[in-house]
Each structure stands twice: as C-alpha cells, then as structure tokens.
C-alpha cells in the first residue's frame, strides 16, 4: 500500500460516498451540495492525473458555475421532495438490479484487459498544463472550439427564450 494508492482509495471512497449521498438525499439542496463535494474530489483526481488545467476548469465551471445554477433553480422551484409511491412498483428494484449488473459487466470488462501502471511512464514536462492544452486546442481543434462558442451562444438564447413569459399585448 503506497501512499499514492492510499490517497487514491480515500478519495475514491469520498467520491462514491458523496455520489450515494446525492442519490439518496431527500432534500434537493443536500443533493446539490453532495454533488459539489463529488466534483471537488474529481478535481483532485485530475490533479493526480497530471491535468492541472482541467482540474481548475472543473472547479471553476462545474462546481462553481453549474452547481450554482442548479442551486438557483432549486431555490426557485422549491426543494421539497414528496415521497409518494413510484408509478410502477417494479421500477426501483429493476433499476437497482440493472445497475448492479452494469457494474459487474463494467468491472469484468476492465479486469479482463491488460492494464498499465500509471507510474511506469512519467508524463512529459508541462503535460496537462495550460500551454500544452492551448497549443493543441487552438491548432488542432480550432473548429470544434469555435463551434462550441456558437453552441454556448445558442444555449444562452435558448435559455432566454424558454423562460420568457407570454408576450404582453
């Protein structure tokens, strides 16, 4: 048990726990908060995986902007969660069963392949840093980059249109 591995284990547990918390929390705000914890944990993972830029982007965009948006909407709509019976009684058990199945399949898939130790290969200097990211992003992926900017524009317009009240006479 190396310290790396112990760290990884602890962080993984936190991530899974917060995810489960988000899943089972009755209060929507609590779910949001749990998710924020999860995002934070994932950001740390990014750091461990030599992706500092992405880590910070994660914290800024995801935990910062997106979750705030979520919280805004939760506040707007009311966070109550009434516990009524589900539509079909077999929905929940089946979902759980299928989830377990998927997990088993996934794990089996992973361990049936050969995998490399991450520590064997040391990444290049500056791997995952903003300069490297920027170079690849603006050279190779310029078009998708511009497309995403348009996407963001569309999203903005769409959000505004969708929430507009009926036109006044």
């Amino acid at each position, binding site marked *: 048990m190396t310290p790396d591995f112990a760290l990884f284990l602890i962080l993984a547990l936190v991530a899974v726990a917060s995810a489960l918390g988000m899943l089972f929390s009755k209060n929507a705000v609590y779910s949001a908060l749990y998710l924020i914890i999860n995002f934070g944990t994932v950001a740390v993972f990014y750091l461990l995986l030599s992706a500092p830029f992405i880590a910070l982007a994660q914290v800024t965009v995801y935990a910062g902007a997106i979750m705030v948006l979520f919280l805004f909407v939760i506040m707007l709509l009311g966070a109550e969660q009434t516990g009524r019976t589900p539509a079909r009684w077999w929905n929940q058990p089946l979902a759980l069963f299928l989830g377990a199945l998927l997990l088993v*399949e996934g794990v089996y898939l992973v361990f049936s392949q050969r995998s490399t130790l991450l520590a064997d290969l040391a990444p290049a200097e500056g791997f995952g840093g903003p300069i490297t990211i920027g170079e690849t992003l603006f050279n190779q992926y310029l078009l998708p980059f511009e497309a995403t900017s348009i996407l963001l524009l569309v999203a903005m317009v769409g959000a505004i249109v969708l929430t507009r009240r009926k036109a006044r006479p």
Partner: protein
Amino acid sequence: MLLSEAVPAGGFFYLAPWVLFFPLIGLLVNILIGGRLGEKAIGGIACAASGLTFVVAVLLAVSLANHPEGQVVPLADWITIGDLRLRWAFQVDTLSVTMMLAVSSVGTLIHIYSIGYMHEDVRLNGDPPRFRRFFVFLNLFILAMMVLVSSDNYLMLFVGWEGVGLCSYLLIGFWYEKGKDGIGNAIAAKKAFVTNRIGDFGFLIAAFTIFVAFGTFEFGPIFAKAGAVSAVAPGLILMITLFMLLGVTGKSAQLPLYVWLPDAMAGPTPVSALIHAATMVTAGVYLVSRSAPLYVQVPLAQNSVALVGGLTALFAATIAVGQFDIKKVLAYSTISQLGFMVAAVGMGAFVAGMFHLVAHAFFKGLLFLSSGSVIQGVEHGHHHVEHDPRLKKTLKQRHAAHQPFDPQDMRNMGGLRRRMPTTFWVYLIGALALAGIFPLAGFWSKDEILAEARLLNPTVYWLLVIAAFFTAFYVGRQILLVFFGEPRTEAAAHARESPPVMTVPLIILAALSAFGGALNLPGLHTFTLWMEHTLEFVHAGEFNLQVAGLSTLLALVALALAWWLYVRRAAELARLPVQKRPDDPLRAMLGPLFTLLENKYWVDELYWAAILNPYIAASRFLAEVVDGRFWHDWFHDTLITSGFNLLTRLLSVRIDLGVIDAIANGLGTFTQRAAGSLRRVQSGYVRYYALSVFLGVVVILGYLILR
C-alpha cells in the same frame, strides 16, 4: 313476234319458271294494293295470273310436241351441303305438263266462277272486305301446286306438297269464325292439316330413305339407279314406296287418312272444287306416277297401293249412298274416284290413272261448282221467303222459320230443274260422266282402268266394279233428289238461277266433261303416246268390250234402281202421313244398314275413341303431371331451386360471412387489440423510457462481453 319466230327452235322451255312467277305476282299485287281495288279488279288480277299460267303451260306443251323428251330448266341453287346439292329446277316433261295443264285450266275456270260466287258469299256471311283474301289464297294455291308438279327433285316437290296443305287449311277455315258453335270451320281446317301431317311424316321418312339409298333427291339420277339399288337393297325401296303410300293416303284421302276430306266441305264451294276435287288431292296420284320406276321394282308395294285404292273406292262409294248433304255426297264420291286412280297407278296402269285424273278434274270440278250454284240458288230462295212480306205465311211456316235452315241438305231441295235449268243440264252431264255413261269422258277413263285391272289384278277389279255400281246409284239418287220431283221447301220453290259469271265456266267444264274422252280414245291412244315419253312402263290399254259392256250395264241398272226408289217409291211414301214418312225411301228399305251408311260407319268416332282421346289424355298427363307437377314443381322448384338456395345460403352465410368475414374482421380486431395492448408501453413516464434504454444497454453490453 312474227309467226315464223313464234316457236323458237329450242322450244319455250325457258318459260317454265313463269308458271310460278305469274301466280306469285298476282298474289303480291292483291296483297299490296288490293285494298284499294274493287272486287272486279281483284278477281280480274287473280284470274289473269291463273290464265297466264295456263298460257305458259300450253306453250310448254307445244314445245314438248316438238321435243317430247322434255327438259330440266334450272332456276337457282337452293341447298349445297357436302354431297347434297339441291336446285330450284323445273322438270318439263309430259307428265308434269299434263298436271300443269289440268291444274291451270280448271283453276282458271274456278277463279272466274269464284268472282260471282264469292261476291254473294261474302255478303251472305257479312264480311265484304274478305273477298280479297280469298283470291290471294287461291293464287297462293296455284303457286304451290305448280311447285309440286314442276319440281325436278323430291324435296322441292315436298315444298309444294306442304304449300298446298297450307292453302287447304287456309281456305277450309276461310270463314273461321263460322261453322258449328262458331268454331266448326276452324276445327275442320285443323283436322285437314293434322291428318295431312301424318301423311307428310310418311313422305318425309320416304324422302330420307331415298337420300340414304341414292345420295340425292333428283328424279333423274334416282330413277337411273333404281334397278341397281333394288338389286342390292330391295328392303330400302320397299320402305320408300310404302312410306310414300302413307303420304298418298294423307294427301289423296285414302283409307285410313281420308277423314279430313268430308269435313273440308266446310270451306267455300270453289275451294272444294279446286282443291279437294280437281287438283290437290290428285297430288298423291301424281307422286306415285312420278315414282313409277321405284314402284315397279317392288310388286309388293304395288299390290298394297292397288288394294288400298280399291278398298277406298268401294268403302267411300257405300258411304256416299247414305249422305244427305249435297257436298258430302260429292266429297265421298271424290274419295271413291281417287281410290280408282290410286288403284290404277298402283297396278301399273299409270296412263289410265292419269287419264282418269284429268277427266275427274273436269267433271268433279263441274259437279262441285254446280252444287255451289244450287246451294246459292236455294239460299236466295230462303232469303226471299224469309224477308218477303207479300208471301203469306202459315203458322207452321213461321214456326219452321225459326229453325236453322241448311241450304245444303238435299231434303230441302227438289224440283230445281225448272227453277235452275242451266245448272240442271250441266249437273246432269257431270253426273253421267261420273257414272261412266258412254260417250262422256268418265266412261273412257273409268273403263280403261277397269280393263287394265281385269288383266293385272282381279281382286281389285271386282272391288272397282262394285264401286262403279254404287257410284252410278248415288249419282242417280242425287240428281233425282235435287232436281226432280216437287220442291220440298219454300226455299226450293223460290230458288233462282246463278249469274253468267258462274254459269259460263260451268258450261265450259261440261263441254270438257263431255268431250274429254277424246284424250285417249282406244285406237288413237293420244294420251298414252304422250305419256310414254316420260313413263317407260306404259302400254296401250286395249279396249275390252266385255268389261265396257259389264260396267255400262251395271251403271244403267243402278240408275234404274235409283229411279224406281226415288220417283216411284217416293211418290208412294208421300201418301203416308208426315210423321210416318221416312226422309229417304232407301232408309225404309235398308233400315239400320242405312243408318250405318249415313253415319259413315262411325269411323270418326272410332278414331276419337281409339286414338285421339287417349292421345289427348296422355299429352294432358304429360303436360300437367310430368311436366308441370313433377318436372317444374318438384324437380326444378323444390330440388334444384331450393337446393341451390340452400347451397348459396350455406356458402354465403356460413362460409362467406362466417369464415371469410370473420378472418377479415378478426384481423382488424386483432390489430386493434394488439395496438391497444402495445399502446400501454407509451406510459408517458420518462423514467420508464430511461429504464428501457438502460435495459437495452445492459443487454447489448452483456452480449458483447459474452461473444
């Protein structure tokens, strides 16, 4: 036409088709525009047509004088099927021209007579416009008869045969709404037609057999092959001749199919004269003469024919003795004389038979026409008596006037020789000719037959001799009842003579009856030589003094007997009171035998009981029970229709509606129900959809792993 060119080298044979065209034109003109013409014009056209036919016949005879072998004049093709090729062709030879002359001469005279007779008759019966129809039918008859005698093959002859049968029917039933019970004439016409039909059946069988045996219908080829075929298949020839005999008994009124002729007297008198005395009924005799080459092959058939003729002659003569209707006497006389002719040609004495045919045409035509004159005279007397207010009537006479008066009953006549002298003299000549008194035509022709019979067939000879005795007797009886003595009724007392348009033809016929014997005087044998060109089997009949003497003696005895009965005896019986007075002295003498003769041996009643009623009952049974109840009602309606309906109901309801519709509807219902079930998949719950997606993912992943 210059006289030198009058007779072309080839003769007038090419005129042969005009014997048909003239009557045809006459009848068409009368049909189309006769309605607008007067009686004289209509009669004139018809007589002209008949007269021109006579002229053509004379020209043909003249041509034959130069070319005695005759000629076949074709007109057009009629039937061409396989081996059978029939033409409309005219056989102009001495035999056919003889018939043509006889028919057209007597026919024309009767046409002229009919103008006067029908003028009165249509007024007596109350339908003047029917005058035209009579002459159309008469011309039609001449046309059909000419077709019959001028044809060169059996089938065309049959066309004429049927045609004269049709005209007979039309003319007998001329006054179709009159007669006994308003239908008697029509029934008589029907009887004639149906009885003739039975004979026609025989003729047709003979014709078909001829085709089977000879392969053709034409006279020439048939008679040439007759000997050869007879050697190979004599049975066929026998069949042909015997069935032809059946046709002859129908058309020429021999036993057993003679029954139509007396009833045919229901037609107007000119019809009786022309068709039922002079011409149509002789068609059978003509047929046998024409078929002579066939008959000489089978002596059995010849004997049959001769025997039928002889028996008929005697049988009919005896019936004539007991008849009171003036025309019925003449009708049975005709049957009897036809028996003479048929016996003659049956024995092989073809010339004698044809000679008697011609002579008989003259004197029987004369007798019928004269009887018509007598009847009309008495009718006029009756009218005169009924409607003249000047005559005082006793109570008895007024009473008698309400009874139906029969102008044809000889018991209502008497003493007419004073009232109708011309008619009396011509009638006397005709009657004596019929009786066979020297030197009238009947004597020569009848004697020739008797002479031949004595040589050829003694049985028939004796039958004919006895028949001749009865012939003279009933002739005398008729003359004495009608013309002698005192008038027995007022009508007879006031009878009047007929107009010249009627009496002139009578006089002409009387002359022919008187001098017609010159046709074939023994020694000269004009007619025999004439006929020899066509018939190969003739031989000149020798005059036999014995035969002639015997027959003349018998005739005189019969006439004397008639005189004694109807003058002397009648005078005696007249002294008896009215109730005890018999209507006929012969009845007093013969008693029940006379009743038998008067009722014509009840032959008609026998036919009705034995043949017609069972036949009618059988046909009624077949029609009502078999055809109606069984076939239509049960078989068709119940079995087929109901069965069919049942089947269709089964098919339509059970199968079409039940099965096929069920399948079609079932498909629809199934689709609906399936859709209804599947619809519930769209629950509207998003989580449910997501679950489905998730399930799919898991399944696919699993499949990929396990692969």
